[in-house]
């Protein structure tokens, strides 16, 4: 397992926090411990795959409140919530708000392993997607206005002839632009190009 994966623990109970950190370290995670929601929010987060293990019951800002706040300010780190009592309404609320898992204390080791692994995978996936999109955007920027028009239309599945009539240009010109788009975007087929357009959220 990669040692550059971070698990953040937010729990007001120092002993629990440290024990949890200890266990996670023994599982080869990088661990950052925070005593409160605000401590976590003001911490400098490393640019690496990460997840957050969060205690629900804390003085001041509760775990649920922190989770809501993170959603609002677009911190999309996967959250695992911990609670002392299996409060069903609370867990439903947490899951609805996008928590990866809801663990009841005392936490079963396997549950923790599974939950953290899932959360990390989600974050890695998210980060990969993010990297991918950033790359696509950079490439997309290289396209000329005409090439962008052609890309959108090709991505929707139009034949060269249809694209030509749509743009009132010659089919040969379309062919040329299309080749250029495929090369710049690094797409090998129209289908790949269509997926890229979708990821870039560009429409005609």
């Amino acid at each position: 397992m990669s040692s550059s994966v971070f698990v953040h623990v937010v729990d007001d109970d120092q002993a629990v926090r440290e024990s949890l950190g200890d266990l996670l370290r023994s599982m080869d995670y990088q661990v950052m411990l925070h005593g409160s929601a605000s401590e976590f929010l003001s911490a400098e987060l490393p640019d690496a795959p990460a997840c957050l293990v969060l205690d629900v019951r804390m003085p001041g800002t509760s775990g649920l409140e922190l989770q809501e706040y993170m959603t609002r300010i677009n911190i999309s780190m996967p959250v695992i919530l911990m609670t002392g009592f299996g409060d069903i309404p609370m867990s439903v609320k947490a899951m609805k708000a996008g928590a990866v898992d809801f663990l009841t204390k005392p936490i079963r080791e396997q549950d923790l392993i599974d939950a953290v692994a899932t959360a990390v995978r989600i974050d890695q996936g998210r980060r990969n997607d993010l990297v991918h999109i950033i790359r696509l955007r950079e490439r997309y920027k290289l396209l000329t206005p005409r090439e962008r028009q052609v890309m959108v239309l090709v991505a929707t599945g139009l034949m060269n002839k249809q694209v030509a009539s749509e743009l009132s240009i010659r089919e040969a010109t379309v062919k040329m632009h299309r080749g250029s788009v495929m090369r710049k975007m690094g797409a090998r087929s129209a289908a790949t190009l269509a997926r890229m357009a979708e990821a870039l959220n560009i429409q005609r």
Partner: protein
Amino acid sequence: MYGRVVGYFPALIEDERSLAMRLESETHELEAIAKAFQIISKEMSYEGVARALLKEALSYSGAARGGVLLSKGGELLAKADASFPRERAEFFTSHPVAGEFRLPADISERVLARQETVVRQASSRGSALIDPVEPPPQSITQLCLPLVHQERTIGVLYLESERRETFTSRCISMISMLASQAAVFFESTQLFEALRETNLWMVKGQQIGRMGSYRWNTRTLLSRASRECYRIFDVDLDVNPVPFEVFKSRIYPDDLPDLEQALAEAVSAKSPFSHEYRVVHRNGSILHVAAVGQFDLGPTGDVELEGIITDITERKAAEQALTDARNELARAVRLASLGELAGSIVHEINQPLTGIIMSAEACLRWLAREPTEPGEARKSALRVIEQGRRARDVVTGLRSLARAAQLKFTDVQINDAIEEILLLLKRDIERADVTLRTALDRSKLIVEGDRVQLQQVVHNLVRNAIDAMIATNEGPRLLTVSSKAAEGHVSVEIADTGIGIASTNRERLFDALYTTKGDGLGLGLSICRKIIAVHGGRLWVEENTAHGATFTFTLPLRPSATVSN
């Protein structure tokens, strides 16, 4: 008495024959009078004597009509018993039955005021009997004589006849005797009735008060007791005096040794006796009684215990009901907070438990690594121990919480209770560099409550105040504890100059599990509020005008419990 009667006869010189006749007739008359006395004397009531007197006077004199009026003056009655019912102070009986008795003014004056015997002729309109069922004849002869006792006129005997010769001087003197004798009887029946009435009141009073009086002879061990005592001890009224064995047989067996000891101690010390015990009736029902008494010398010269026994069964039942209700309330409060408490307990136990399990698992993992990491494993193991200790502390804390769950209501001097807590927290106050200012009401404010629980509330509030001030570095740290009484309540204020409370948090403060403290249980204020509620008071918080917070609770004062110094 007969000698007196004879003395009234005029001394006449008569011949032997007429003397013999006269003697025979006098004997006859004396017999008649004696019989009349007997009849009258058998009457037990005021009215009975009056009726008998009238009947005998009519029959002796041969008069057809008459009446007896007993004065309203009430002097005789007053002598017997001042509180004797008034309506009986005037009594009138007549033959034939008449609506009213009204003496003509001149007769009234002579008879009532001057105590003279009056005989006179009158027309039917002059009759003292008003609206009789049978009208009087045209012309009547009236005899009216006062009923005198100890020089006071207590009434009037009135006779009337249509025949002029009815009231001979002899007849008049005989009837006078009858009347004066009757007056004596009036007094005695009067006294008798008053006595009976008084006794009835006492019996009734004892019944209402469920209280009986007794005298117990410490030598003969026999008791004399009032009727209510007989009821309380379920003893038949014909058992008189009551032997000690009968008395003992009614004592609840478990209570007998204590009672005998208390009696023995009181007898030997001649000290006032006071003891509560239970009595068992023959049908198995149980009464609670309170006996008090003191020793004195009885009529026989024996030492006697004289006193009162009160049936306090109902009071005991009421007391028990009150205690039950309070315990029930306490239980209800306990149950109500149990859910909240359970959540807290789960949390408090769960935290270290979670730590223990995770640290132990980490420890195993460090040891299972290749190569092993004994340093990390050791740290994990130490965490296990540390968390185990913490769990133990929580359990110890819970035990004391469970112990405090039963409320014991007593009279609590609230100021004393507060001062004790302040003394207890003196070091904490000093250590936190807090200045304490007290303004306690100088009167003795007594509330009915559980002292320990009330002190717990004060302790909690003062502790919170100190913590709130430790959390700030601004301004002076001033703790003000004050109490004052108003409108049957005492209000206690604990004010601090600490961090204060955000208004949005003000009511949540009293919810269980809500805490602003890192190490708090979140139970303190919710329990405080419940304790105060159980005592019939209120607990609330308000922001200080400058900074800090003021917690106030009120408690109802025990009625008439404010005693000024």
